[in-house]
């Protein structure tokens, strides 16, 4: 990729002062939300129509561009990912803060979508854990897992935590839901290189 370091250049200019490669950047707020819906197959691609109440950001499947954005009427989820202030010429200031981790890890949207995708992939892979991991990587991160990544994920799927949770009869997330959720929180999910 254009952002992948080259050893010779890295030695000469480690901070990329001379722009010998692309600097990585984070997806814009709207794209983070749209991408969550898109990779889980839930994005509603309908165009046009009236604006959508900003409070519906976590339940609506419409693209973020149709959410209302006005003073004091901004979606909390999008604001956390640095949606531009409405009265500052829509300038963006991308940040990396713990609130983003909480939004992608704990929100109704992320939890619901991870369950939906996990359920669909489970039906497709027929209980084959390696295949589940491969499919999940392809859907969420648009690439194949490396051998080391695949191994770590398979080990995760069969870890004791699964057993403990299932015997407790928890009606919460299952381990495959958790794996998809982890991938939705992966650095590569929100990073453009």
């Amino acid at each position, binding site marked *: 990729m254009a952002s992948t370091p080259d050893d010779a250049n890295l030695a000469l200019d*480690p901070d990329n002062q001379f722009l010998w490669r692309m*600097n*990585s950047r984070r997806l814009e707020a709207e794209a983070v939300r749209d991408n969550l819906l898109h990779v889980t197959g839930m994005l509603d691609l309908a165009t046009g129509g009236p604006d959508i109440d900003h409070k519906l950001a976590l339940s609506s499947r419409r693209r973020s561009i149709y959410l209302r954005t006005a003073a004091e009427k901004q979606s909390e989820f999008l604001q956390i990912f640095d949606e531009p202030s409405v009265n500052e010429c829509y300038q963006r200031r991308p940040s990396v803060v713990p609130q983003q*981790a*909480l939004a992608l890890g704990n929100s109704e949207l992320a939890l619901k979508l991870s369950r939906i995708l996990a359920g669909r992939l489970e039906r497709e892979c027929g209980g084959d854990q390696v295949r589940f991991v491969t499919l999940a990587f392809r859907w969420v991160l648009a690439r194949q897992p*490396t051998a*080391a990544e695949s191994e770590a994920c398979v080990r995760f799927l069969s870890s004791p935590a699964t057993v403990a949770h299932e015997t407790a009869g928890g009606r919460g*997330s299952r381990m495959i839901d958790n794996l998809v959720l982890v991938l939705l929180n992966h650095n*590569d999910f929100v990073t453009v290189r």
Partner: protein
Amino acid sequence: MSCKGITRRSFLADTGMGFTGLALGAILHRDGVRIRADSTGLQSVPGGGPHFEPRAKSVIWIFLCGGVSHVESFDVKPELTKYAGKSIAETPYASVLATEHANVLGGNPSHGNRKNIMALQTGHRQYGQCGLAVGDWFSHIGQCADDIAAVRLLWTIHNDHGAQLTWQTGRHPRELEHPSLGAWACYGLGSMNENLPEFVVLGVPTGDCCGGAFTYGASHLGPEHGGVRLNTDPANPLPFIRPHEAALSAEEQASNLSLLGKLNRLAGIDYPDDPQLRARIKSYELAFQMQTSVPETIDLSREPAHVRRLYGLDGQDTKAFAEKCLVARRLVERGVRFVQIFHGGGGVVNGMRIRASRRITRSCPVRWINRSQACFRI
């Protein structure tokens, strides 16, 4: 574009790619606050160390938005009463109109172009051995005159609310974003804890006209040094603090985080110098800790009765401010470097004056000082 200094500093400050997985077990079972950066271990100071051994470890900065009238609080000007009703030109001080302060003193057209001097609206007297003159509205604070420092050497060339941001960044909002004081302190001195942000913001900052998010931003120092806003409401200290409908147990979250850290490090092998990746790994570790540390910190229900009284937690007028002050104290006790409190809004005008001054003076700061219970290292 990444800044050279930040990349170097982040590289030195972080040992490798975060500590997810490695230290997680230890953190989960650790009680109390661990001071990582002791006086000799300040690994993240640009240039290698502070210029002198600091006595202060934390800062709590109470910023009263809009401010109180300085001439009726701690910078009493009896001459205003003497020349009340006259214009400045009619007083012996007419020469100030010929200076660069003219646009402030000459009256603001958008505010009615008032040019006549108004008398002080309250009396005043001197307090303590130092003889600090204090307006009568603030007599409560006056009683601790010998324990406080009133700084009277500041002035501004701005004639409006926008001047407020000058406190936080030294700049006017029209000069856009610059690192705030809290961001500088955290950038220079590093974090003292792993469970809470190094720089916390309580209350509602001044509006966008007067700084807004600039008041606690880190600008070019890097997003990880910006202030993190918390509410003092235990039910909702910050958005998404708990998994929706308790879908995940703490153990599940811990095992998810452990896998996430592993995968991020595996994927990051090709990008060992990516500051965003490092910041993101750090932010996930902190977010996980904050889910328990933040609600615990802002839960004031177990504070003993004498502390509640001391801070004015049960008084209708003082409650909102008292909560912020007590939460701030609990934050620095847990190793937060910098706490910025914002309180109030708009100037103190006319009928609001007495009520506002009562709210402020009857709340915490006075009592901390009064009773020498200041565990604040300001």
